[in-house]
């Protein structure tokens, strides 16, 4: 194309790049290691980042080798939810390759900065959430260089892993990518045989010419396919679930074999020739920084190279979250760096207003905020009149504490900055954001930034990735040419993370003579920067009530807050479902039938699915059958998107709980009714997520709490911040799936919130005591 083509109307830069890429059969930009010293040995089998393939790609998601090995590019981060496999399934369903020869590989965030998405991937076909033949309702935010919302038209578009949306947002174009690759392989085969492409089909990587029975394999035609453009990719259509042969079947997760062998390279395991390690201490009071430190005291400790003070990380780069400044010690090994750092005197400069903050004060502020008008989000009917009418009133105030993500792998990042390039190896849920940070901190353009993704040792909330990348980038930028591996201790990880904000909620209802609510008011108070405050209550009451008001009330605190698994759902579900139990008890009605009756009176689009979930869970659990003394059942509805009629995920759980007279609580059994939507992608991963989330939120309900004292978080390791262990796991978990008439919203993060309200109600049923403040380890559960 000539230079003048750039200025022709009707040819966009995107078209030029796509055409150029297709014409040249673009090679992958692969893994790069510094050319220095003998390699220290990273086991290549355990490394998941992009490698330069020996062959040309068919498209940006699919590489086929001559031996039929298929490499699928994965643009989300594997953190235990199974995207390494389910993303590959979405492509391979359409590709129709031999699944046993598929190996995933992380997509390149660098290419995503250089290339645009092919035009044919941008259009969502079909009629939205209730169309099984269509692409559903993916959501892309405004195009933003920070990548916070994903970038709608960059090559890999949404590379963030959050909001349980990997399937919802990616499915349709991953299917398109697989279909486009398949069609081009067929075109190549047809071309090589000199036959019409309509006579050629494929399955399991084998291409067959119908009339003659001739066969070939994908591997044999892939090189030709790489240079065979599709004449009309915009006409490609994706399969609907009734046509699926791979999606919807239980598939073992492809990352598991290395994980059971200890061979997976997590970010913490990255090791490069010439690498130095950095141990870090950040000011434990957010917003504070280093006043002075005395490096001379440790200069001669073994292996010590240097120390560097880093400033408070730029809040603009971490979505406004304010962490502390700190100091890093750089050494030949991490243990040397950490040991020396512990001996190095550091004086902190702490703003007095922050140092005065503690949990009681925050709680008091939130309670005061609840009494103010707040921001009214929903107002149906006239609650004030209903409350003044003399009907029976039920009121309850609940609270949930600050909670960190506490993923098993402490924060870390490996960064190499040279004068014209940045490489960062990291487990990270938002590589486009990290790429942007790298560019901002080093001044090197994003097109020269390479984010090499590693599997994450736990995710639990995108923002909670904290500033480890930013700290490492700052340090490496001041040590250009030397790879820097930054690793936090567990104590540092508790400091350098965003927290789910503490919440307080007051719910009030007026009941008529039959015990049905005639008015319901919900007030939720959190830090104004906390995401998800409107979950579970917004838009419409899930349980019918003619007068309904929902308002949010915010204050500002200096504790950095962000998304943690479930975002706003876990706290708000706890308040809502707990209050429904309290109303049912006040009305003298069965909590399952109470819910059922109220939902059926709504005009919610998915009320039938909600009722079905409750019915199935109740039946599975033997609801209504007598239990021995000291045992109780509680039920809860879990839904996300249940009010809107778009993509939604609806489930219900019944928890059977026992409490000994000495107050030992045991989760005995969980019965789960979970919708599949039109279909799940990998039902095995869905089961694993449900199982894991039950215990995850049990942990929240029973144990987890982060307190603030003198402006800093108190709990900083697993002695004061207990994690549930195997012995607490329920001995029995039963899961029943049922299909519905819409696409699922996602289920990676809010499928166990019901345990919280269930425990609260079981405690009430067994002990007679009603506790409303999580966690339950703070409460006396004895009874007689």
């Amino acid at each position: 194309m000539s230079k003048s083509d750039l200025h022709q109307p009707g040819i966009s830069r995107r078209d030029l790049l796509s055409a150029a890429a297709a014409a040249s059969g673009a090679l992958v930009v692969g893994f790069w290691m510094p050319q220095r010293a003998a390699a220290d040995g990273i086991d290549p089998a355990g490394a998941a980042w992009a490698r330069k393939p020996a062959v040309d790609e068919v498209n940006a998601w699919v590489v086929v080798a001559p031996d039929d090995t298929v490499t699928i590019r994965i643009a989300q981060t594997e953190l235990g939810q199974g995207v390494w496999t389910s993303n590959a399934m979405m492509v391979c369903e359409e590709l129709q390759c031999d699944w046993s020869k598929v190996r995933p590989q992380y997509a390149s965030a660098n290419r995503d900065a250089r290339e645009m998405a092919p035009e044919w991937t941008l259009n969502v076909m079909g009629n939205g959430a209730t169309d099984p033949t269509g692409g559903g309702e993916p959501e892309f935010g405004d195009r933003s260089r920070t990548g916070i919302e994903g970038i709608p038209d960059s090559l890999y578009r949404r590379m963030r892993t959050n909001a349980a949306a990997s399937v919802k947002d990616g499915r349709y174009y991953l299917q398109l990518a697989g279909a486009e690759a398949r069609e081009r392989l067929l075109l190549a085969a047809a071309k090589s045989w000199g036959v019409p492409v309509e006579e050629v089909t494929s399955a399991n990587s084998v291409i067959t010419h119908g009339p003659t029975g001739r066969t070939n394999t994908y591997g044999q035609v892939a090189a030709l396919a790489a240079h065979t453009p599709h004449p009309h990719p915009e006409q490609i259509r994706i399969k609907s679930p009734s046509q699926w042969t791979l999606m919807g079947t239980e598939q073992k997760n492809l990352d598991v074999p290395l994980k059971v062998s200890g061979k997976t390279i997590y970010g913490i395991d990255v090791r490069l020739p010439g690498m130095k390690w950095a141990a870090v201490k950040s000011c434990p009071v957010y917003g504070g920084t280093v006043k002075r430190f005395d490096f001379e005291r440790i200069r001669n400790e073994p292996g010590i190279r240097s120390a560097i003070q880093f400033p408070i990380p730029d809040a603009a780069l971490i979505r406004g979250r304010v962490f502390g400044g700190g100091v890093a010690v750089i050494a030949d090994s991490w243990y040397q760096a950490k040991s020396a750092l512990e001996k190095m005197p550091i004086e902190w400069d702490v703003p007095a207003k922050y140092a005065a903050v503690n949990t009681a004060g925050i709680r008091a502020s939130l309670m005061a905020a609840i009494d103010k008008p707040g921001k009214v989000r929903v107002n149906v009917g006239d609650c004030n009149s209903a409350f003044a009418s003399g009907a029976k009133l039920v009121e309850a105030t609940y609270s949930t504490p600050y909670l960190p993500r506490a993923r098993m792998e402490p924060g870390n990042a490996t960064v190499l900055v040279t004068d014209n390039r940045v490489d960062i190896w990291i487990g990270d849920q938002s590589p486009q954001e990290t790429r942007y940070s790298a560019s901002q901190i080093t001044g090197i353009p994003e097109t020269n930034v390479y984010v090499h993704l590693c599997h994450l040792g736990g995710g639990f909330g995108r923002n909670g990735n904290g500033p480890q990348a930013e700290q490492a980038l700052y340090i490496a930028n001041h040590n250009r040419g030397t790879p820097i591996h930054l690793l936090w201790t567990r104590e540092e990880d508790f400091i350098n993370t965003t927290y789910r904000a503490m919440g307080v909620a007051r719910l009030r209802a007026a009941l008529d003579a039959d015990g049905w609510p005639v008015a319901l008011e919900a007030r939720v108070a959190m830090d104004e920067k906390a995401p998800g405050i409107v979950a579970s209550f917004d838009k419409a009451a899930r349980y019918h009530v003619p007068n309904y008001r929902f308002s949010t009330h915010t204050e500002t605190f200096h504790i950095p807050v962000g998304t943690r698994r479930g975002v706003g759902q876990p706290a708000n579900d706890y308040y809502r479902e707990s209050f429904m139990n309290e109303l049912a008890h006040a009305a003298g009605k069965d909590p399952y039938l109470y819910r059922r009756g109220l939902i059926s009176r709504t005009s919610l689009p998915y009320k039938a699915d909600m009722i079905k979930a409750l019915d199935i869970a109740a039946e599975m659990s033997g609801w209504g059958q007598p239990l021995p003394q000291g045992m109780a059942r509680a039920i809860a509805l879990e839904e996300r998107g249940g009010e809107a009629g778009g993509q939604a995920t609806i489930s219900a759980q019944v928890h059977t709980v026992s409490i000994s007279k000495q107050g030992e609580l045991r989760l005995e059994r969980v019965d789960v009714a979970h919708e599949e939507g039109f279909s799940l992608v990998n039902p095995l991963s869905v089961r694993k997520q449900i199982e894991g989330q039950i215990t995850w939120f049990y942990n929240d309900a029973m144990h987890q709490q982060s307190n603030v004292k003198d402006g800093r978080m108190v709990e900083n390791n697993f002695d004061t911040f207990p994690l549930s262990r195997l012995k607490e796991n329920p001995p029995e978990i039963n899961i029943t799936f049922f299909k519905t008439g819409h696409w699922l919203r996602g289920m990676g993060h809010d499928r166990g919130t019901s345990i919280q309200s269930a425990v609260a109600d079981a405690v009430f049923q067994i002990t007679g005591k009603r506790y409303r403040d999580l966690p339950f380890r703070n409460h006396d559960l004895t009874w007689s």
Partner: protein
Amino acid sequence: MAYTIQVNHVQRTVDVDGEMPLLWVLRDELNLKGPKLGCGAGLCGACTVHLDGQATRSCITPISSVGNSAVVTIEAMADDPVGKKLQAAWMELDVPQCGYCQSGMIMSVVALLNKRPNPTDAEIDAEITNACRCSTYHRIRQAIHLAAAKMSVQGRAL
């Protein structure tokens, strides 16, 4: 100071401070990345290795205390009769999610099965205290019973 220890059946010599935890000797001096840092305080078990067959939290075990004890890590489990069966059971039931805790978890379970080839749930509860944040405990328990059943079917106690 020089320390010679037996790691995965091979003598290895390192020159480090005696207080350096075995975890960091294994990971950074010997490049065995299987054992992980979870807490650095012996509270989570991600660092679990065997010392003479006993499950040991290597993050709080100074190298100077190892002496002649045989150190075995997850890397040796593929060649270990019990380890191999356990890894097979882990794969059959697709146990891991993020997988970060699993090196230590598997080492703890191998140590248990070597002592109690067919453990009860109560014995499992008491012995396996490793933290798994993803909470894969449901499948861990099933996989332990699966591996134990396969081992006894083949008539092998070890």
